[in-house]
């Protein structure tokens, strides 16, 4: 059986099962006790009658006795009663017409009265009443309770139909059959409600925790208003957050520090290389190799620069120098580049005029360049690039799509990861660091926008950059002295 995922349903079911088995057990026992009590009462009545009937009497009295028996026993008239009397020789002295032939009495009578070693009654002393024996038998006409007694004079058996008792017991059973499921429903519902109310505090806690994680790792779950039972949980969670925050800060500080420390040697290396390059004989081999070295240093600087930006983004300290940017003209300028960079590609552009946003010009240019250069790098031979830019109610969206091979789902999921460059065999020949997209998305997000990879379409890849209206209207006060980041 599949494990039930819902705690509430499990609790309700379990309570219902427990209460159900208790109730069913209780019902069975009480049903049996009631039945037993009824039969016992009948037995007691029968015993009296048997003793009375068992005394010697004329033959014709049996008939009259049978008639009075029903009254004596206190049995309703519709319940059949039968009497059988046998003398010591085994001859039937009297047999009611209702006597069911299927009733077996031989086991009830102890033995032939003649063979009984009856003690001779001592004078003045009554013989002890013979002990009757009882039995329930099932015949074609229903269940019968038979009481039998053996006296020195005769063997008497009285059978009373149990149909009435069975009917009464059926009523009791029906009451149980109706009542128990009802009670079970009540129990299950109650358990469901109780589980719900106890879970609601967990839900409240979940909400608080969700708020905390959304607002940043430095947040903590407040402990004051929490239920006693949850304090420990909250403490553990807060400790976890603290460890997480420390680890995260360490990692981000490390890359920030590393990037910073790398800058000085890079500056020296680049400066000296450049100076020597200028002094070398133009076009000489030494100048050529110096220029290659210089290019590599630039590439290294580029990685360092991006790592530093990413570490700032991680630390939530990417600050923006917002100005008004005309995205339309920016994109138009970049279209000119595509023509130079990749003359073989077919370029389609639908750029709405006057797309102004408030943003950091350098950073947004970087995002757009990253998208466009990716569209060129990962294009198909004789492929195409399409750029659309529109204003919509919430802001501005820019889509850059290009002809491409299908991106595998595993790559799609990881495309924004740092240093991730897809299938190494396929992309090795293409230059790049695998930092661009990751950084582009961080930049978009720091502008309260986003960068997403659109759902796959056959033969093309499409990225959408969204800059929301807060980017347009909300102008952060970038003026004034900013508190320095603690580690830079």
């Amino acid at each position: 059986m599949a494990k039930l995922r819902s705690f509430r349903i499990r609790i309700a079911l379990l309570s219902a099962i427990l209460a159900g088995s208790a109730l069913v057990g209780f019902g069975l026992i009480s049903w049996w006790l009631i039945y037993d009590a009824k039969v016992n009462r009948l037995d007691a009545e029968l015993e009296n009658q048997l003793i009375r009937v068992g005394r010697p009497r004329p033959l014709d009295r049996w008939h009259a006795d049978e008639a009075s028996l029903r009254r004596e026993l206190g049995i309703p008239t519709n319940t059949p009663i039968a009497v059988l009397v046998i003398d010591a020789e085994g001859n039937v002295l009297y047999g009611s017409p209702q006597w069911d032939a299927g009733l077996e009495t031989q086991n009830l009578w102890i033995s032939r009265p003649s063979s009984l070693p009856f003690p001779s009654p001592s004078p003045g002393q009554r013989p002890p009443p013979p002990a009757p024996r009882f039995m329930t038998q099932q015949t074609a006409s229903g269940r019968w309770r038979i009481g039998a007694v053996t006296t020195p004079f005769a063997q008497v058996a009285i059978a009373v139909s149990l149909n009435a008792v069975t009917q009464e017991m059926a009523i009791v059973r029906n009451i149980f059959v109706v009542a128990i499921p009802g009670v079970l429903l009540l129990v299950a519902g109650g358990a469901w409600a109780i589980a719900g109310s106890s879970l609601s505090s967990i839900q409240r806690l979940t909400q608080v925790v969700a708020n905390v994680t959304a607002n940043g790792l430095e947040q903590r779950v407040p402990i004051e208003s929490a239920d006693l039972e949850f304090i420990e949980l909250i403490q553990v969670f807060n400790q976890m957050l603290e460890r997480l925050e420390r680890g995260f800060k360490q990692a981000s500080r490390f890359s920030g520090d590393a990037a910073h420390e790398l800058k000085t040697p890079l500056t020296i290396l680049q400066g000296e290389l450049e100076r020597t390059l200028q002094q070398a004989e133009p076009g000489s081999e030494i100048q050529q190799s110096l220029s290659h070295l210089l290019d590599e240093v630039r590439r290294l600087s580029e990685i360092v620069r991006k790592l530093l930006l990413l570490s700032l983004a991680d630390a939530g300290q990417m600050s923006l120098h917002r100005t008004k940017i005309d995205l339309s003209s920016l994109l138009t300028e970049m279209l000119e580049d595509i023509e130079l960079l990749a003359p073989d590609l077919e370029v389609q552009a639908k750029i709405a005029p006057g797309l102004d946003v408030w943003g950091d010009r350098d950073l947004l240019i970087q995002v757009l360049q990253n998208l466009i250069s990716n569209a060129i790098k990962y294009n198909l031979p004789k492929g195409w690039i399409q750029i659309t830019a529109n204003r919509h109610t919430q802001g501005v969206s820019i889509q850059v799509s290009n002809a491409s091979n299908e991106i595998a789902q595993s790559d799609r999921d990881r495309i924004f990861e740092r240093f991730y460059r897809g299938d190494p065999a396929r992309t090795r020949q293409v230059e790049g660091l695998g930092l661009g997209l990751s950084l582009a998305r961080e930049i978009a997000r720091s502008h309260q926008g986003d960068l997403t990879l659109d759902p796959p379409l056959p033969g093309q890849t499409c990225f959408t950059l969204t800059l929301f209206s807060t980017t347009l209207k909300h102008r952060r006060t970038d003026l004034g002295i900013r508190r320095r980041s603690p580690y830079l």
Partner: protein
Amino acid sequence: MHILFIEDEAKIANFVRAGLKEQGFVVDYCDNGDEGYRRALDNTYDALVLDIMVPGKDGLSILKSLRRQGHNVPILLLTARNELDDRLEGLNLGADDYIAKPFFVEELIARLHAVVRRSAGDRQNLLCVGPLKLDRIAREVTCDCQIVELTSREFNLLEYLMRSPGRVFTRTQILEHIWGYDFNPSTNVVDVCVQRIRKKIDGIGGAGWIESIRGVGYRFRDDGKQR
């Protein structure tokens, strides 16, 4: 031009000083902020180049103190730290420009010229090398008095080369400066662009002014005269 250069890293200071001197700057150098601040107060320099992270009084404090005391000497910040934060803070505190490490000396020189010109109220934004005249404000290039129609990328590239005649620029350097960071360095976009500029100026007397350096990149021919 008299420059005060405050930078604690001796090796950086060496090539920057060498580069500046080559271009005819007179450079005073000191390696800590306290002394640098004293000198900045004592002497009249045409411009200051301040590293932000120096021992003693740091670059931003020097900048702040100088501006508070009414000194309006042009100041250019060197930053190795968080570029954006420093850039913003520096500019807000009254720096005239900033340049992020690692930088090219040529770029530093161009910026220095720019800030000094700006502070002197000198609006002369004309670059003249050989037959070519480039007006930065009008964004107009004339070659032997004929207007050359250039796209904005072509104009920027030509300006970049003309700014430092005789200096060799690698393709990557040009690509980065004109197009930005994220383009593929192995493309021939620089070559294509240079070809287009050449085509436009060759017919009107500009032939041979943009020189190709085999295996390296390009430079603008130096006619031997100082700017």
